Every structure is written in C-alpha cells, then in structure tokens.
C-alpha cells in the first residue's frame, strides 16, 4: 500500500519526462497520452487520499526522504491532480499553445509531479526538491513560446524571484540541523533549539511568501501572465502559487513556536489581500486582473495560516483553485477566439460565447465572495480565525473582501456589456483569433465552475467538522451568524458600488491608479535596488579581475622576464667577460711564458688555457634569454638542492 505514494509522484514525473523526450516524434498522440497520465494520477491521488500511504528512503546522513499522505496533503494531492486533469483536458485540440506539444504536456505533468512531491513530502530536503523543480517548470512553461523575448524575460524574472526567496528553505535546512532538530522532518522543525528556531521560521516564511507572490514578491506573477493561459490556469492560480500558503498552513506549529511569526504572516497576508486587491481593480487586462486577484486571494490563505486556521485556509485554497483555474480557462478561451485579453476589447464577450460567459460570470461572482458561493463561506472561516487572533488583521481582511467584490464585478461588468458596434476593431491585439471556442474547453470549464460554486458546503456544520478533522484543525473557530451576514453585506454592497462605478471611470486620483496599475512598481524597485547594483558590481569585479588580479600575475611575469634580462646583461658583461678575459689573460700569460720558459711548461699552460676557454663557453650556454628555460633550470636546481639536503641530513 505504501508504494502508492511513490506511484503518485513517479507517474506524472516519469510520464511527463517521457512526453518531453519523445513528443517530437509522435506529436499527434501526445495530448491524449498526457490526459491519460493525468487521469490515472487523479485516480491514484484519490486512492492515496483514502489509503493514506507513507513511505521513506534514506537520503543524506541523518536526513531521510519521506513521503506521506495525511489529511492535509490528501486534499492538496486531489486538488492538484484534479486541476491538472481539467486543464490538460481543455488543452486538447486547439486549446494547447502553439509550439512543441510534447514539451508542453510533458512539462505540465512534470510540474504536477513536482507539486505532488512538495505537498506529500514529510522532510525538508524532499520538499525543497519538489519546490525548486516547480520553479524550473514554471520557467519553461512561461517561456513556452520562446521566440518572444518578452516571455522569456518574464520567465527569468519569475524563476529568479522565487529562487531568491527559496534560499530561505536552504537556510532553514541548515539551521534545523544546527539547532539539533535532527532528522529534518517537517514535524520536528518546531523542536529546533533557539536561536536557530528563528532562522528556520524566517527562512520558511520567506520561501513561502516568494512562491505565493505575497508582498513584497508579488511582481513576478504579473510577468508570469505572459505564459499560455493553460499554464496560468494550472501553475499561476490554482497550484504552484498556492504552495507557499500550503507550506505555512502545514507548518503552523512552527509559526506558533515563535511569538512573532504568526502575527507577521497574518499581517502580510491581510495587507497583500487588500493592496493586491486594489491593484486588481486598477488593471485593464483580464489576465493581469486575475493574477493580482490571485495574490490577493492567497493573502487570505496566508492570513489563515498566520492565525492558526488550517481548516479555513485549506478550504479557501481548494475553493480558490477551482474558481481561479476556471476563470483562467475562460480568459484563455476568449484569448484564443478573439485574440485579446484587454478588458475594453472584451466588452460583450460573454454574450458572443454564452456558455463560456456563464461559466466566467459564476466564477467571478464566486471570486467576489457573494453568498452562497464557495469563497464567501471560505473567506468567512478565514476571517473568523483572524478575528480570534486580533481585530487588526480581521478589519484589513474585511476591507480586502470588499475590494475582492469590486474587482470581480468590474470584470463581469465588462464582459456582460452589450456587444459594441465596432467590437472587431478591438480584437486580435495579441494574436489572430479563431472566432470560435474550441470544443475541448467547455466540459472542464463547467466542471471547475460547478466545483467553485458548490464547495461552500464545506462551511455547513456537518461537512465543516469532517473537514476540520481531515485537515487536523480540531477546535477551529467557526464564524458567528452575524459574521456571515456582515461579510455578505459587505460583498453585496461593494459589488453594487463597483457595478455603479464601473461605468464612471475617473473617480480615483490618477497617480494612485497608475501606481496600482503598475503593480506598485515593485518590479522597478527590485530592478533598481537589487538587479542593477548586482550587475554593476559584477561588471566592476570583472574589470578588476582582468586588470588588477590577472594584471598582477602578468606584471609578475614581466618582472621576472626583466630581471632575467638584466641578469643576462650582467652575466654577459660581468661574469662572461671575466671568464673570457681570464681565458685571454691565461693565453697571454701562456704566450709570455712560452717566450720565457721552455717547451715543457708550454704545453701544460696551453691545456689550462683551452680548458678555461671551454669553461667560458659552457658558462655562456644556459644563458639563452628564454624565460621558460631559465625556469626549468631553476626547477632542476631546486630539486638537486633538495636532494642534497635530504642526503646530507
């Protein structure tokens, strides 16, 4: 039975890799195979959710690789597998983005496998492995149409931003080992000794906020929208960005172990929900609006995690996954049909394509938090958990709920307007539209929308207690009846106001709109504060490396050469000449001696003279002026010296 959890992760990882490798050879079979793998994975996920397998294997000294399906990861595994299946179904036929299908379907499956590893991992190393592979597949999928430089640049920004945040998990792993938490088990992390406990917590929070596009990392999600809509529907709304919230929900005991982490996380979530909600209101592009709302909605999950509302946060996660992936599929269907995602150009799109329009409207109203749809109930659970911890985050969260109603209704307002006369002129801003909805899109779209609408039953008393048991959140705070009423009133009121205001632009100050429209200019800030200084430093260091460090070595070489030349000159002029002159002197002396002495002495002197001459010739010989030969001589001399020392000792 425990093999089931290995099968759960190996199936999409293996199947996906095979599709990536062989997709070029049989492109026709790829979509069907991809969907088949996804369906089987969904079946395995459901079976695993029932059977609750756990497995492990040794990985590093004292750190195992562990996978297990408990209540929380059962929910996540089924959600991931279900959304993957739905999105891949919608990508059958014309739904898939242009380009290599094997790569697209394969990478979507590899992503799903990595995400399943991350949500079922029970130890930190394995979590980190799944976590980073998700980021890499996100890079490849955003840049799927790699001919477009804007897309590949956005892919790079997304990967580097999330990887920078991921350093937190590396830090947490080291700190957990240092703090004697032992096995790097996620369950053992709260037992880390202080001060390492704080490092572990901070690292986990940073990684989670980065992945979940919370403030201040939100900007990467904006660029990620340049990827295909199917990718946005799976990775950048339902699953990958929610992984950060999932991690915080799972590690709530760790947050609770330090005094500061819970409030920090709760406030970050609440503020992100509010501010990114405002950003969503200011967007003029449907996918950008949905992306900002993703950050904002995940803010509610993060708020729940910081407040200890695991059941509430998980309910929000699942309801949001169904809602948002449905909305992205609808946006993608329009993008394919009409060639645009501009809100102004999408006027009346819901009337042109009523089925997609109806699904989109229901999804958007769910997103608005209108009763009795699912996110209304889930959000109230989150707010109740937040109120138990403090009034501040609760109030901010309530305001964020109002903003959520505003941006959702804004989108609905645009697409349900009567079709303008010159609608055609606004189309085809991104690509040439097909003017029809691909047959594969509606079934998964409707299924997701249905789930989005009815998942609110989880808030009913009976299912709620089952859900709390499932997610291991016994004793969760349930909202009071007046809270349901208050949030419903806020949502309906804000929605009405937004409907009224949508046809009257220019109410808000222009600077604020520009600021919100540009995602708070966070990307520009990151560019100015981090990227440019680092690139500048890199260039300066490269210059220094060339001129100073390598230059010093070259100068030393030149110095050696000069010294050897000098030595040669000295040698030529001094030693050599001395030798020569000695020889000459000896010759002269010999001549003199011959004159003076008799023949017997003469021959001996001649021999000495020729010997001296030979010595001079020998002494001249190594002075070639070639540096490397001098060097080799030095080396030989050194070795001889050493041998002498050795033998003499």
């Amino acid at each position: 039975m425990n093999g089931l959890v290995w099968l759960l992760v190996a199936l999409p990882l293996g199947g996906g890799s095979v599709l990536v490798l062989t997709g070029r050879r049989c492109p026709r079979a790829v979509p069907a195979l991809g969907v088949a793998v996804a369906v089987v994975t969904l079946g395995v996920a459901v079976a695993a959710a029932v059977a609750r397998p756990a497995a492990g294997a040794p990985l590093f000294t004292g750190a195992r690789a562990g996978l297990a399906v408990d209540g929380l990861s059962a929910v996540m595994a089924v959600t991931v597998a279900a959304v993957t299946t739905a999105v891949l179904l919608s990508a059958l036929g014309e739904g898939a983005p242009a380009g290599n299908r094997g790569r697209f379907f394969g990478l979507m499956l590899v992503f799903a496998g990595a995400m399943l590893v991350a949500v079922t991992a029970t130890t930190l190393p394995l979590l980190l492995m799944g976590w980073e592979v998700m980021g890499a597949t996100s890079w490849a999928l955003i840049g799927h149409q790699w001919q477009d430089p804007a897309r590949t640049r956005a892919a790079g920004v997304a990967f580097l931003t999330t990887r920078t945040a991921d350093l937190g998990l590396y830090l947490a792993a080291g700190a957990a080992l240092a703090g004697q938490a032992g096995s790097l088990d996620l369950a053992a992390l709260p037992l880390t000794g202080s001060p390492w406990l704080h490092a572990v917590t901070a690292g986990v929070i940073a990684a989670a906020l980065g992945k979940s596009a919370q403030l201040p990392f939100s900007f990467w999600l904006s660029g990620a929208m340049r990827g295909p809509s199917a990718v946005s529907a799976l990775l950048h709304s339902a699953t990958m960005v929610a992984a950060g919230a999932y991690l915080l929900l799972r590690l709530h005991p760790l947050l609770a172990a330090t005094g500061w982490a819970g409030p920090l996380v709760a406030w970050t979530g609440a503020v992100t929900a509010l501010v990114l909600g405002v950003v969503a209101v200011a967007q003029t592009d449907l996918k950008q609006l949905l992306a900002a709302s993703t950050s904002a909605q995940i803010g509610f999950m993060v708020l729940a995690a910081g407040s200890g509302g695991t059941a509430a946060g998980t309910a929000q996660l699942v309801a949001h996954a169904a809602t948002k992936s449905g909305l992205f599929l609808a946006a993608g269907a329009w993008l394919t049909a009409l060639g645009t995602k501009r809100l102004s150009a999408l006027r009346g799109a819901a009337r042109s394509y009523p089925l997609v329009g109806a699904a989109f409207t229901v999804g958007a109203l769910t997103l608005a938090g209108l009763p009795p749809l699912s996110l209304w109930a889930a959000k109230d659970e989150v707010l109740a958990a937040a109120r138990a911890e403090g009034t501040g985050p609760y109030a901010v969260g309530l305001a964020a709920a109002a903003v959520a109603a505003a941006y959702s209704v804004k989108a609905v307002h645009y697409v349900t307007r009567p079709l303008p006369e010159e609608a055609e002129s606004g189309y085809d801003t991104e690509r040439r539209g097909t003017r029809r909805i691909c047959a594969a899109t509606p079934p998964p779209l409707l299924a997701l929308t249905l789930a989005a609408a009815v998942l609110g039953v989880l808030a009913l008393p009976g299912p709620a207690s089952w859900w709390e048991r499932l997610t291991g959140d016994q004793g969760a705070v349930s909202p009071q009846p007046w809270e349901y009423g208050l949030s419903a009133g806020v949502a309906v009121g804000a929605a009405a106001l937004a409907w009224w205001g949508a046809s009257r632009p220019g109410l808000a100050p222009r600077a604020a709109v520009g600021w919100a429209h540009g995602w708070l200019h966070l990307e520009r800030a990151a560019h100015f504060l981090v990227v440019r200084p680092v690139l500048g430093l890199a260039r300066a260091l490269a210059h220094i490396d060339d001129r100073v460090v390598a230059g010093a070595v070259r100068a030393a070489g030149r110095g050696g050469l000069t010294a050897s030349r000098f030595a040669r000159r000295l040698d030529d002029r001094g030693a050599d000449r001395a030798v020569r002159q000695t020889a000459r002197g000896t010759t002269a002396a010999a001549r003199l001696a011959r004159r003076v002495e008799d023949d017997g002495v003469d021959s001996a002197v001649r021999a000495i003279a020729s010997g001296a001459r030979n010595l001079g010739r020998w002494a001249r010989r190594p002075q070639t002026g070639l540096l490397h030969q001098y060097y080799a001589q030095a080396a030989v001399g050194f070795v001889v010296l050493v041998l002498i020392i050795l033998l003499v000792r």
Partner: protein
Amino acid sequence: MLSVLVFLPLLVCAALALLPRGLGDRACAWIWISTAALELALVVVLWSGFDAGGGMQYEQRARWIPSAGVGYHVGVDGLSLPLVALTCLLFLAVAVYSLREYRRVRSYVCLFLFLQTVSTGLFVALDLILFFVFFDLSIVGMFFVIAGWGHGERARAAALQFFLYTFVGSLALLLGFIGLYLAAEPHTFDIADLARADPLAGSGPYAGLVLLAIGVGLAIKTPTVPFHTWLPPAHTDAPAAGSAILAGILLKMGAYGFVRIAMPLLPGSWREYALVIVVVGVVSVVYGALVALAQTDFKRMIAYTSVTHMGYVILAVGAAGTLAGTDLQARSLAVTGAVTQMVSHGLITGALFLLSGVLYDRGHTYAMDAYSGLAAHTPRFAAVTAVAAFAGLGLPGFSGFIAEFQIFTGSLASRTTATAIALTGIVITAALFLTALRRMFLGAPRLPGALASGGVADLRRHEALPTVALLALALVIGVLPRWLLDVIEPAGRALARLVAR
C-alpha cells in the same frame, strides 16, 4: 588491479607511439575509445568489489626510492574511488567526442592516454612524491594539449601562462611535502603513515608554514580566488576536449589534495586556520559568480562558474575543520558534500565544456552576442544545453543539488555568516545561466554574420552521446544518490574524525 588501471593507458600510449606510421586516424581514435571503455569496465569491477565500510582497499606497495622514504603506494577509499570512476567516465566521453578530430590524431590520442594515466594515478596515489609526480605531469600533458590543439597563437600564450602558474604552485606543494617529510620520525613520504603519525601536531608556526605551502599549491590548481586567473584564458583557448578534462579532472586534483593530504596530515593547523579557508571559499563562490555574470564569452563564463563551484568545496572543507557549534554529523555532511560536488562538477561542467565546443564548431566564436534563437536551428543542442545549464545551477534532480544541499546544511552551523553569503551564489549562478540561455538559444533566430545563411547542423551523434551520458549520470545521482553517498559517507565521516582529533 589498481596498477593495471593506472598504467594501461600509458602502455597503450607507448604501443601507439611505436606502431608503424601507416596506422589511420580512425584506428587511433578507436583504439583510444576501446582503451577508455576497458578502463571504465575495470572501474566498474573495482566499484562492485569495493566494501564501503572497509577503509583503504586494493592497496599495492612497492619499493621505489627507499633511501629517501619514497615508495610506490596506491589504494582507493571512499574519497578517491568516485573520482577515479569520474576520471574513467570523462575520458571515455572525451574520447567519443573527439572521434572527428583530424589534427595530428595520433599525438592527440597519445597525449590524452598519458593524461588518463596521470589523472588516475594521482587519485590513487598514497605517497606524497608519487602524488607530486602525477600532479606535475598533468601540467605538462595539459600544456601540450592547449598549446598544440588550442585556438591559434593565443593558445600558446595561455598554455605557457597555465604551465608557469601551476608549476609555481606545484613547487610550493613540494616544499610543503618536504616539510612534512622532515617532521616525520622516521622520515617518510607515505600518506597513510603520515596520517597515522600526525607529525606536526603541536609544532605551531612550522606547521602553519607547511600548511601555507601545501594550501597555496593546491589553491592554485583548484583554483580559488585570487589564484584563479590562469583558468579563464586556459579554458577559452583550449580545445573543448582539453577544457572538459581540465575542468572535470585537473581542477579536482587541487580539491582532492585538500581532503587527501592537507586535512588528515595537518589536522591541527587545519583547524587553526579554518576561518581563512572558509573565507577563501566564500570569496571564490561570490566573486566567481559575479565575474561570471559579467562575461560575454560563453566559455569564459563557464570557466568562472568553475571557480564558484570549487569555492563550495573549499567552504565545506573549511567548515569541516571548525569544531565549535557543530557535531560530527554536520561535519561529515560537509565533507561528503564536498566530494559529491567534485564528482558532480566534473560531470556537469565536463558536459558544458563539450557543448561549448559544439558552439565553437558551428559558429567559430564563443561570443554570446553573436547568437540568438539558436533553438530554432538546433533544437537538440538547445535542449541538451538547457538541461546542462539547469544542472549547473543546482536544480534538484541533478547531482549539483545533492552536493550543494549537503555543503550548505553541513556548514551553516559552524560558519553561519559565511554560508549565508555563499548561498547567494546559487541565485547569481541561476541568473547567469538563464541569461546565457536566453541570449543564445531563445528569441528571434540570428546566427553570426560570417556564417552562410544555410544554417547550422544540430548535435551530431558523437557529440550527443557523451554529453547526454554525462548529464544522465548527473540526473541519476540527483534522483537516486544513495549508491554514491554510501561509498563517500564512511570515508567522509572518517576524515571528519581525523580532522577533529
């Protein structure tokens, strides 16, 4: 057995040199490939007979220069066996890659066979002088490879610089070895005896000077900042096969020297100067990564990432010498990570350098600006390079992650600040690899101006086979690392104990 492994390539080299002139180039290449394959098979046999918990194995001793305490002593343990296996694999990969070499093939093959003997010999040597001889001969062999088969006139200058610089390093190393020899009673160069005796325990500044000499010698070869400047020109101007061996094997000789000689033979001074070593490691990591980020030349960029990756090794071995605030588990994790990183870097950087050779073969330049959208012309080449780049940036699922994760988690406890700074290296490395991929392979297709508009050929079989095989092994280690870690871990733990004594 081990001696056969070491000297078989040299024998074949000698036989090749003696064979009649009429022998064709293809025949030479195939002789090389068969020899390298036989070597790999031998290593597999060695590995299968290796008992991970059994310490030094397959030992062989012979008298060599007994009067000077020099002996022929070889053996393998968990630190050296993975590197010996890497050597045999990488040489086979290079042999296959060089199948289409056409310039003076016989001397080329002889030189690489000679280099294989030297490299394997170094990793199994258990005598300091034997180690030194192989260390020096590797410099000589690589000098001829760069000077003879590199890119033109500049290659000769780069080769000379490489030779002189690393030769100075080897002289420093010899000085340190003699210092060790003189301190041991009775005098000996035998590594096992020296490790047992720990001759310089408590001898203060003298031991420090010996460590300095050995450290500088090994640091030049590794290389670490600031002794790294010979590396970029040597790589840029070397032929692809030479670069792969230089980065994959020769750099490991320096790093291996630290774990085989400096740490077990000088444990006291190693602990004393651990901070210096850690700082050198961290500076190498961050400095190397930043300078690599600013490069415009693909091969030069990869050369600088080698400085970064070797910096991780130095950081880990430095942290393993720090006892405060840490336990044996963390320190052996760091050492295991360091050895894993050597293997991983050999596989991945070896593949990257072979791929850069393909790039040069097609476009006759390494300048990244000259290319754009190569994926349109050469999808397989782009895909393999992308995989290699992600492996290089330490993506989980590849061996680099297994190594770096162990290094970081093992070093953080004792060297918190340094390790935290070194962590930024993995983001900078990611940035530079992604930028390189985007500039050269993605975007609108554009080729260097000098090329005919006919386009360029994709990866050929003899180029694809070695690179894919190396990356596949990196993937296997990344997913199922136990078979490798089972061999390294006992030796890593033993070394961590030796340093702590």
